[in-house]
């Protein structure tokens, strides 16, 4: 087991707990997808893992070490990278500078360059646009840049918060494809939040349904896709269906 959350209670205000005793686990090299309604606390789970929030109860254990309440820059050192919801590139910096910021905590220049090459290999178009201002990239390109930036740390695990948010079906398809390919090629572990439940579960091994700050259901991704309750609540129709086609 690479990551284990046990009875985690966490929130933003002292008076309100968003996560109310949540438990979940992720195995090495797994892709796990969290789905659930708006405000269920999905992002909060990722923020608690990456150290942006400190749990008031419960524990977050990564690779056998308790990382609950550890500062984000130190969680990073453990090999957990978090790509948050929405835009998170540094818009005024160039694409290259953004990638280099990903290795902010690495002081070995040669190592940084090696990783840069590795990232360029994964995303060859980065090289051509290295000088471009990140704020001028399209939404999908920015998301890939953010993923690339996270890879500059060679993390063992990536936390992805709604990577397809705001992207059209074609672009989100590229993003999901990239995630799936990354796992197959590098064996990275992924914990992902997705509103676009069908595509999210489509590339996942397992999934959790989150509601009111607790896990309600834990199944293999295919079982969740077939579950009528899940279908009714989260699989909707429209865009998702066209994507599947």
């Amino acid at each position, binding site marked *: 087991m690479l990551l284990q959350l046990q009875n985690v209670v966490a929130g933003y205000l002292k008076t309100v707990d968003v996560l*109310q005793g949540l438990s979940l686990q992720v195995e090495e090299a797994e892709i796990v997808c969290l789905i*659930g*309604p*708006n405000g269920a606390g999905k992002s909060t789970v990722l923020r608690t893992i990456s150290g942006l929030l400190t749990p008031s109860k419960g524990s977050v254990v990564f690779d056998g070490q308790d990382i609950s309440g550890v500062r984000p820059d130190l969680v990073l050192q453990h090999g957990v990278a978090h790509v948050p919801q*929405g*835009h998170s590139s540094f818009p005024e910096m160039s694409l290259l500078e953004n990638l280099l910021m990903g290795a902010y905590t690495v002081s070995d220049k040669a190592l940084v360059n090696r990783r840069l090459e590795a990232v360029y290999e994964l995303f060859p178009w980065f090289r051509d646009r290295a000088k471009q201002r990140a704020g001028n990239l399209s939404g999908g390109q920015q998301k890939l840049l953010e993923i690339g930036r996270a890879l500059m740390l060679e993390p063992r695990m990536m936390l992805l918060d709604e990577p397809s*948010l*705001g992207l059209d079906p074609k672009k989100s398809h590229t993003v999901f494809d990239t995630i799936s390919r990354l796992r197959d090629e590098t064996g990275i572990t992924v914990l992902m939040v997705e*509103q676009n439940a069908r595509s999210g579960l489509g590339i996942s091994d397992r999934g959790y*349904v989150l*509601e*009111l700050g*607790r896990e*309600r*259901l834990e199944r293999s991704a295919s079982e969740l896709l077939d579950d009528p*309750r899940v279908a*009714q*609540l*989260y699989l*909707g129709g429209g865009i998702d269906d066209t994507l599947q086609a």
Partner: protein
Amino acid sequence: MSRVGTFLKQYWMFVALGFLLVYPLIWRAPYYHVLGFNTLIVATAATGWNILGGYTGYKSLGHSTFFGINAYLVAITANELGWNPLWSAPLLALGVTVVALVLGWIMARAKGSAFVIATIAMLLIFRLLALNVKSVTGGAPGLSQPLAPWSPEYSRMPFYYYMLFWLVIALLVSAYIRRSRFGLGLLAIRDDEGKANMVGVNTTLSKVLAFGVSAYFIALGGGIWSYAQTHIAPIFAFSILNDVDTVLATMLGGLGTLWGPVLGAFILIPGSDYILFNFGASQFHLAVFGVLMVVIILFLPRGILPSLRDRLAARRETSSAFTGASTMEDLSDSQPRGEVPGREAPAP
């Protein structure tokens, strides 16, 4: 318990009012009347300010602009037209409110710190005008106006009662707003302006109205202060320290509560008077105020009343567990509610 509690609450309200009614008769020295009057002005101003700063969350540091404008209007109309300030002050304050509505409408676009600085700039502009448009304002030396007709023996007593009357009115207005739909809209703006807008609150209109109502009670105090003072000068009429008193009183008592601003004023003004009296030097007084303000913001950011309320609530809290419903289970074997987990609009 709850019936006794409610009764006690109202009982204390009347005790407090009774006390304020007899206070000037018990403490007859002019000093006490001046102190009481000043406290009531700040209490009324703070009650008004709270409608904007507390309910709506827009903290102005320049509302004494309206205090100053009305102070001058009252003095000028008393001198030139012979108007009696006791009725001209509340009437002219309405005129000042119109000015405030216009300024508020302009400033409704500014948010956060931009709003606060804009209010300071507004105050400084009016102060410079008061200092420099000498033909109207008398410049830096200021203006005098006729003394009140009653014998100096009564000193500020009539002013005291007059201001007490207006404090009660301010509280009634504040309480009414708090309970109204309009007030709910203000609270919604404070919590999340964007969401308030989305659920149909006309945020601009609400903010502008709150701006105007709070200006009214501050302007009113300025008019009456002007009459009681008989001589007014720009540095006192348009002083950011007036805003400090107002804001500090509100925050001390409890930002966004009905009674907090009044409670705060009744602690702050006598307290600061005590400091002035014992330590003299107004500069030291300023330092004490500054430190007090820092301490309140750091350790009592919500003010006395909400903190007390929390204490009581914590004591009363029983083991009653939170009974949240789980939508997943609710929906699994019944028909779904209309609610489909929709996406928020994608970020632009």
